[in-house]
């Protein structure tokens, strides 16, 4: 099965744990971060294939983290899947959020997460 590496970033530790356990059960390697700053710090040392990224987080929000990932030569190829409860703000996978700023996320999953749907999206992007 897959040896792919995924980072889960959300300020809800219970959600991080639930998603991580699901990913680990599918043989993915998982790293965890609980806010945007921590995610960016970890991305300096680790290069996941895919980041599951919450939008509303303390210290640095998901929009900013996504921009930083996608505008950095070293990390721009990491697939970013946003988690958001503000589904209305999302029109497409390269969408415009409330600030009128285009993000470069590759996909999104509305909250509350349908875990099977999330796994499908992960598999689609990683070809697992």
């Amino acid at each position, binding site marked *: 099965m897959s040896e792919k590496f995924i980072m889960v970033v959300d300020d809800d*530790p219970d959600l991080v744990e639930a998603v991580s356990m699901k990913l680990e059960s599918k043989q993915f390697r998982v790293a965890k*971060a609980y806010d945007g700053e921590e995610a960016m710090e970890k991305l300096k040392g680790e290069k996941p294939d895919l980041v599951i990224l919450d939008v509303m987080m*303390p210290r640095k*929000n998901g929009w900013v983290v996504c921009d930083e990932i996608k505008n950095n030569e070293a990390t721009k190829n990491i697939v970013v899947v946003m988690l958001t409860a503000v589904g209305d703000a999302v029109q497409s996978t390269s969408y415009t*959020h409330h600030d009128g700023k285009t993000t470069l996320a590759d996909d999104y999953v509305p909250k*509350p997460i349908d875990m099977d749907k999330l796994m499908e999206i992960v598999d689609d992007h990683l070809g697992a």
Partner: protein
Amino acid sequence: MSGRFARLYQEVDASVNQESVYLYQKLAADRINIVFLSLDFLRTPRQITCMVAPGAAPAAAGQDHDQGAAGLVSLFPHRFDPAAMAVVFSALGQKQIPWYAMASSGSMVTVVTDFAVQQQAAEALAEYVQLSPGHGPLRVQQDYDDIARRLKSAPETVAQYVEARIRTYGIAVKTGLKLCRIDFHSHEQVLLGRALEGLAADKAGFAYISANRAAEGQGHLAVALDPGQTPAHAPDIADHLSPALCSSRLEIRENVEMLCFHGPHFGDRYGIADKALGCLINAGIPVLLAGCVGATVSIIVPPGMAEPGVEALSTTFDRP
């Protein structure tokens, strides 16, 4: 570490006053969010600790309930390892840092301390654990940035407050749990920490923990152990705890059950605890313990009551 909250505490002697309005009910009626709840109905008096926004406290509960400024310190992920409890008891007991309540979620152990010693409590815990690189700062949590704050107050939260059925990530049930309730005095905390380390060394797993400290140094810890996560050959919890706490009382109930669920932004929304507990109580299902930590609600019920509990909760909470 959380920001500053008000700690509210209520004791109810249900044998005397059966018409009591519980604190979580009052707060829900006043549309006040509970960011942390630890409820213990195992004995009389029944005890409830809630944390709410500071300005909300007097209007919601009356000055007699308001115990002053407090903060939350959370340790995660606990992976259901009693070592997380051991750290809390050992670290805070060693440094004699006062705390008032504790409860767990699916990944966190959260402790209520005075706001004035919150930083000290976080640093004491940090001495016992290995923090990951880039971890959140050991200081009072700052508010979300402008964009996040605006989003949180605009479509998302408002929309979810009015949803007819509250969305969840699913309702989990654990059965066959062994519930241990231990009375202790504050000077026994370090001993209790060591006993819990023994439990961790045996690779026992817990499903839920909660603790409350009442007046004059008295406190109690309730641990729902998950036999499914504990090796069959492991010594009984009583073997660990009784020698350490010979002066204390240990009560064990077999085969209790747990309902556990979490949903988006539950920690930011009022009325979740009231709805959950109301569903069960209206269905005649006794609640032994309950906790709201982060976005998770955990409820311990007597043997055989979890499945009816799921049915009762399903009248109000949506299951994917």
